[in-house]
């Protein structure tokens, strides 16, 4: 027999609460622009890494 009866779930309230809509400092367009730059530059880094010659590891 496990100690399961002592283990109780931690559930939030049964009644749903209403959260306020989020407010952000940056505009949607600004966030998309900045993040697109990150996504594109990260892709270039991955491509460079994939195409770079690396020594074969012989075990």
């Amino acid at each position, binding site marked *: 027999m496990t100690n399961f009866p002592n283990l109780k779930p931690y*559930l939030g309230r049964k*009644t749903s609460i209403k959260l306020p809509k989020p407010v952000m400092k940056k505009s949607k367009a600004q966030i998309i622009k900045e993040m697109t730059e990150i996504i594109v530059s990260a892709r270039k880094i991955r491509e460079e890494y994939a195409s770079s010659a690396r020594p074969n590891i012989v075990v």
Partner: protein
Amino acid sequence: MTTIISPDLQKHITSKYLFLDSDFLNEIYKDEDLFSQFTSLVYGFSYPMIDPLIEFEFSRSVTSPKEAVKMDKFVKSEIFTPVSRNQEIFVKIQDNAFILSKIYALHSNGDAGKHASLVDLFLAGRLMTYSSGVACVITGNTRDYPGCIFDVLGVITKYQKDSRLQSFGILTLNQDKFRDEYQRLEKALNSN
């Protein structure tokens, strides 16, 4: 590439915490079009969040130190709402995850959440700590969040370069379903 979002999804996720599973986080990190569509969907409506364990899983896919910097900037974007890292909450999440693993293991069809990883269980455990219907998860592997506990709110489908469709479900924990499953589990364990 095209992204198809199920109708009324924005209405269903408005004023809710939206946790990203690692597969979806990886996808928006690699696809600027999907990121843009996702931002348009949630901006000013819901709170996208990245659980610390998901961030850990995400950062493990790094290829080089240069990319690690980009990944760090990505997860720190203003679009993502910070998640509580309080130790007290973590203990509760851990207990919830443990209970969920037992429910999945003993579920009648024997297949519920069978493939859920430790991180999936902890993320589901975190969702449980929020008020009913306030938190949801977006994942490409809905089997990790089985229908015996979770409800589907909508779907985001991405049309890929190779003409395949990749879908991500938005799911929320149903407290009534959970209570039923928990009672069933207690009965099963106490009958032995």
